[in-house]
C-alpha cells in the first residue's frame, strides 16, 4: 500500500529534547488580557491598519486589510479596545502591531458552532472565503493560501497533498492536530482538491505516528473519500514540500514544486481552510508546540494570535532552568527571540526554550573537510564548496553549482563539527548572487 522512500541523504536525527509526549491532548491556552497583533504575519507587504486607538473591536474583526495581492488580512483574536499601534521587535525586524486590551463579549468562543455546507458554493466564493480569513501557508512558506489555490482547474494539478509531517524536529503540533481534528482536515483537503481540480488526494504522515494511517483510513471511509496515505521517515527535513512531493511521486527531490503537477498544503492550513469555509472563522488561533529542555511541561497549546511568548511558558509550568535562547519556530529553521515579549503569529509552529547556548553565531574551528555536510544535505549539494566559493566572492559560481537549490534547511550547519554557520553564509551568497545578477 505505502512505500517509505529513503533518500540516501537527509539523515538528520536531532537529539530528542524534552518532547511533548505522543498522543498528549491539545491544551487550550488562556485568552491573553492583552493581545499584540503584528500587521505582518505573512510573506509580502504588511496589512494596512484599519482601526484607531480607542476603537472597540469584536473577536475575529478585521484590523488589518490586505495591502495588495501578496498581503493577507489580519484579524483581532480577542474582543476589546485598541490601546495603541506600535512597532514590536520580531525576528525579521521591527513590525507595526495593534495592541488590544481584552474587554466585552466573545462573539464566537463558547457559542454553538454553525456549520455551513460548501459543496454548492462556487470556486470564487470558496477562494474569497479563504482570502478573507487571512489564511497563510502554515508549513513555513507563509504565502497567502488563496494564491496557491487559485490555479485554475484543468491547469494540470494532478495531486493535492495534505502534509502532516511536522516541518521541524521536536515539534508535534501538526501530529496533535491530526489526531484531534482528522475529520476537519480531511474536509479541508476535499475543499482544496475541489478548488485545484486534483485527480488524486494524498495525506503524508510521519513513520513515527503509526496510529495515524489507520485513523485517516477510517475517516476517509466514513466520508466516502478516495485518499491515499503516504508514510514518510521520521527524519528531518522530510516535512519539506519538495521531499513530500518527491515521495508522493516517487521522483528525485530538488525539482521545483511548480514543475511537479501537484500542490502540498500543511494540515494546519487545511484545518484553517475548513474553519474559514465551513465555520466562517478567520485565522485567529493556532496549535503550536511549546518545548525545549528548559521547559517544565512541554505541551501542544491552542493559542490566540498575539499572545505573548512568555505567557506560553507560564502555561507549561514555567522554566526548569534559565533558558539560554528562545526560538520562535523550530530548532532547525526558527529564529532566536530577543525577548519573551514577542507575540505569537499565524506562522508560529512552535516555541522552543533551550538551556544550552548551543551553536554560536560564528565558526568555532576551521573546516576540517570531514564531508559531513555533504552527507547531510538532502539536495545532494556540497555545502562546504559553496561556502568556500562564497567566501572567495564567487557567489555566481556557487549559483552554477546549485546554490539556488539550497532550502536553508540547516542540515549542513547541524552536522558541521566545526560549527561553521553554513546556512547564514549560503543565504548571504544567494543575496550576493542576486545582486550581481540585477546590478
Amino acid at each position, binding site marked *: 500500500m505505502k512505500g517509505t522512500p529513503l533518500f540516501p541523504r537527509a539523515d538528520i536525527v536531532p537529539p530528542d529534547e524534552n518532547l511533548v509526549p505522543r498522543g498528549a491532548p491539545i491544551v487550550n491556552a488562556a485568552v491573553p488580557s492583552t493581545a499584540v497583533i503584528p500587521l505582518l504575519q505573512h510573506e509580502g507587504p504588511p496589512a494596512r491598519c484599519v482601526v484607531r486607538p480607542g476603537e472597540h473591536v469584536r473577536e475575529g474583526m478585521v484590523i488589518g486589510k490586505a495591502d495588495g495581492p501578496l498581503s493577507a488580512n489580519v484579524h483581532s483574536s480577542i474582543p476589546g479596545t485598541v490601546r495603541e499601534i506600535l512597532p514590536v521587535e520580531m525576528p525579521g525586524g521591527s513590525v507595526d502591531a495593534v495592541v488590544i486590551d481584552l474587554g466585552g463579549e466573545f462573539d464566537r468562543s463558547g457559542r454553538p458552532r454553525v456549520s455551513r455546507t460548501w459543496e454548492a458554493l462556487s470556486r470564487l466564493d470558496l477562494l474569497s472565503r479563504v482570502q478573507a480569513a487571512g489564511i497563510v501557508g502554515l508549513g513555513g512558506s507563509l504565502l497567502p493560501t488563496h494564491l496557491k489555490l487559485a490555479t485554475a482547474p484543468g491547469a494540470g494539478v494532478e495531486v493535492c497533498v495534505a502534509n502532516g509531517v511536522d516541518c521541524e524536529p521536536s515539534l508535534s503540533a501538526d501530529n496533535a492536530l491530526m489526531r484531534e481534528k482528522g475529520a476537519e482536515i480531511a474536509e479541508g483537503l476535499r475543499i482544496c482538491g475541489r478548488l485545484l481540480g486534483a485527480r488524486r488526494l494524498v495525506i503524508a504522515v510521519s513513520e513515527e505516528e503509526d496510529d495515524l494511517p489507520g485513523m485517516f483510513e477510517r475517516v476517509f471511509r466514513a466520508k466516502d473519500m478516495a485518499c491515499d496515505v503516504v508514510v514518510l521517515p521520521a527524519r528531518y527535513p522530510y516535512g519539506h514540500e519538495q521531499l513530500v512531493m518527491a515521495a508522493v511521486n516517487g521522483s528525485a527531490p530538488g525539482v521545483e514544486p511548480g514543475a511537479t503537477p501537484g500542490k502540498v498544503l500543511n494540515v494546519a492550513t487545511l484545518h484553517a481552510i475548513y474553519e474559514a469555509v465551513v465555520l466562517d472563522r478567520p485565522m485567529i488561533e493556532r496549535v503550536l508546540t511549546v518545548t525545549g529542555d528548559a521547559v517544565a511541561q512541554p505541551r501542544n497549546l491552542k493559542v490566540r494570535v498575539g499572545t505573548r511568548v512568555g505567557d506560553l511558558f507560564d502555561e507549561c509550568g514555567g522554566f526548569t532552568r534559565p533558558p539560554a535562547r528562545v526560538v520562535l519556530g523550530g530548532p532547525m529553521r526558527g529564529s532566536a527571540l530577543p525577548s519573551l515579549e514577542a507575540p505569537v503569529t499565524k506562522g508560529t509552529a512552535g516555541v522552543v526554550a533551550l538551556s544550552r547556548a548551543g551553536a554560536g553565531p560564528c565558526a568555532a574551528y576551521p*573546516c576540517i573537510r570531514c564531508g559531513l555536510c555533504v552527507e547531510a544535505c538532502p539536495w545532494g549539494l556540497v555545502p562546504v564548496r559553496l561556502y*568556500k566559493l562564497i*567566501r*572567495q*566572492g564567487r557567489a555566481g559560481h556557487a549559483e552554477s553549482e546549485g546554490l539556488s537549490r539550497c532550502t536553508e534547511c540547516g542540515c549542513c550547519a547541524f552536522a558541521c563539527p566545526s560549527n561553521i554557520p553554513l546556512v547564514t553564509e549560503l543565504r548571504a551568497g544567494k543575496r550576493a548572487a542576486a545582486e550581481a545578477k540585477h546590478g
Partner: protein
Amino acid sequence: MNGAGSPSRHERRAIVLVLGAGPAAAVSTRLVDGVVMAIATFVVLAGVSLLLPLVRRGIQRDDAVGPGPTAPPAVLWGALLISSCLTALVELALNALMPAESARLGIYVPLIAVSMLTMGRVDELALCPSPARALAPTLGVGAAYAALLVIVALAREVLGSGTITLGRTTSLGILADDPARAFGLAAGALICLGYLAAALRLLPGSRARSDGGER
C-alpha cells in the same frame, strides 16, 4: 621597465616564482657549491646585460618590434647565443681554476644559460636600449639569485650534513653525527625556498596578496 625602481620587484619575483629552482635544488647542498654557482650566474648575467644592448641594434629590424612587451625573435636568439657563449667561458674558467668543484657541479654550470631564460631576464634585457639601463636591474636579480643560492646552500648544509664547507669543512658537533638528511634531498631545497619566499613577502613594500586562503 624604468631602471632604478624595478630591481626590488625583480629580485622578489625571481625567488617567489622559484625561477631557476632546478640548479638551486641540485647544487645547493654545500655552502661552497652555492657560492661558486652564485658567482658563475652573476658573471653570466652581468655579461649578457652588458653585451646584449650593444649588439641589439645590429640584429633587430625596426619593423619587427611586436606590439606587446616581448622582444622580437632575432633578439631572443641573440641573447641565448651570448649567454651560451658566456656560460661556456665560465665553465672553462671554472674547470681550469677549480677542477674538483667543476666536477661536482657538472651539468649545472652549463644550465645557467637555461636558468637565464627561465628567470625571464633575457626577455627584458632584449628590450633595454642601453647597457647602463640594463645593468641596474640585472645586477639586482643577479645579487638576489646569488644570495638565494648562498642562503639555501648554507641552510641545507648545516641541517642536512651538519657541516659548513667553504675552503675547508667545519663540522658542527652533534648535528654532524646524525644530520637531517632530508634537507640534502631536493625536497629540502624546496622547503628552504618556500620559507625564503614567505620571508620575502613579509618585507615592507612587497605585494603580499591574500588569495582567499581556502582551497
